């Protein structure tokens, strides 16, 4: 995509604006690039799996007629799985796989959003509560909670400060000292001690 825009801007510079030819050429470049990309992905895919089958064949050729049959078969299987495992690892690390994964994720997210929007619309049309509404309420509660907890923390810090001063003056005057406040951290929301 980056290449296409560069070519377009070059064309604009040369022609002093966006030419008709340039406009027609852009989709062709896109198609060509996409085809190249697909071919590249296919080539990488073929390479990885070609190597895999090669390794698997090699694993199968370690046959010794003296070895007991189950052991031999297990050894062969283990070799095949090892080769397959290595190739999968290589494939899962390849940019082709990650690009594909990204596309899958993008599609899944788009589908989720689309279905979410649809259900929200349906629920609103039937005058019922949608997940979006619940989210909005939850977020409002969450902000309120944060504000309250922040305030409580400020108050705790102030009380600690006051206690420190009282303790200091208590030591001077011989009065008993005040207990300290809870160390920093959030206030318990809904504790249930057993």
């Amino acid at each position, binding site marked *: 995509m980056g290449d296409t825009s560069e070519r377009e801007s070059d064309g604009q510079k040369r022609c002093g604006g966006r030419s008709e030819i340039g406009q027609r050429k852009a989709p062709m470049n896109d198609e060509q690039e996409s085809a190249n990309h697909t071919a590249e992905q296919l080539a990488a895919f073929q390479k990885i799996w070609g190597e895999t089958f090669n390794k698997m064949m090699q694993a199968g050729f370690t046959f010794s*007629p*003296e070895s*007991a*049959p*189950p052991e031999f078969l297990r050894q062969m*299987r283990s070799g095949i*799985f090892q080769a*397959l*495992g290595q190739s*999968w*690892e290589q494939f*899962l*690390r390849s940019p082709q796989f*990650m*690009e594909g*994964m*990204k596309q899958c*994720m*993008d599609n899944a*997210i788009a589908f*989720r*959003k689309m279905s*979410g929007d649809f259900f929200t619309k349906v629920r609103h049309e039937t005058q019922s509560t949608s*997940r979006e509404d*619940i*989210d909005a309420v*939850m*977020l409002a509660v*969450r902000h309120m909670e944060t504000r309250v907890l922040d305030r409580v923390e400020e108050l705790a810090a102030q009380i600690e400060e006051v206690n420190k001063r009282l303790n200091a003056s208590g030591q001077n005057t011989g009065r008993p000292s005040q207990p300290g406040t*809870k*160390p*920093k*951290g*959030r206030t*318990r*929301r*809904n*504790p*249930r*001690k*057993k």
Partner: protein
Amino acid sequence: MSTANDIGNPWARWQESFLTESAANARRLAQLPSLYQRAQRVKKGATPSEVVYEEDRLKVLHYPGKEPARYATPLIFVFALVNRPYILDLKMGRSVVSHFVDRGFDTYLIDWGSPTYADRHLTIDDHVNGYLSNVVDFVRERAGTPNASLLGYCMGGTMSTMFTALHQERVKNLILLAAGIDFSTREGLLNLWAQQEYFDVDKFVDAFGNCPAEFLQASFLMLKPVQNLIEKPINFFEKADDPEAIDDFLTMETWLNDNIPVAGEVYREFVKFLYQQNLLVQNKMPVGKHTVDLRKITCPVLNIMAKNDDLVPCAQSMPFNDLVSSKDRKSLVIPAGHIGLAIGGKAQREVWPHTCDWLSERS
């Protein structure tokens, strides 16, 4: 010159093996129909425990043990927000918790619970400075001690590290078990897949709310697809006539498939700040209004890592000891995987007794 006998022997061996294997396969097949019922009977947690504290969905389990605690400082297990914590107390002979209980430690385990859609806004701050802070306070109060020891596993280790850096005065010893600290490594597939250019965590969390359990499960399976999807079932079938092996397999599979979602905001912060920006090792990790500075950790630390960990590679945990100010620090690298580090035979025989010794000298 080869005789007819020499030529005939391998063939006879093949025939004999074929019959033996066929008989074994018949025995294995006969076990399969009862698997479902046996899977239903799998017990979650082996050591006797009681719930001593609850907050929202969180529960704190206390393991009273047969005898009173021998060490003053209580020990708190902090498990990850992914999966259930009973992996640490899976079954008799494969329980991490029982090692510590039997050695006389006052042992607690945090079960974070399963977040619902309503919990999607919970952040790392809520877990570290909220829940974990409250649990540590509760345990300190209960045990009558100024501080407690923390043992964090995986993501729980990362959170324990953050807590210790923010509240060092409340932590006496810190034990990390396969904890992600330095996310710059590209050794692990998760680190690769979570890169910003391939994974837009904001879009994902905005669309899904919480990170779905199925998504996490699929990601973990994809780390080793051949082993998880092909080799494991075959290996299981080969041991299907061994009741002990079946029991181990079912217990493990029950835990592996007992997935829970991760609260959306926690997931967003974890991916963005750690996997993508690697802020923890730069001492820039924001947790609410605070910033985690690993240099503030001064307590004794024991960093246990698994050599063959595909989830949290060694390289991700290794730098921890060099980033803290503790003078008493130790690393252990075990030839095991992420789960084997806790419940594997070698870990049970060597790592946990050694860890108990280490902790007993400091409790």
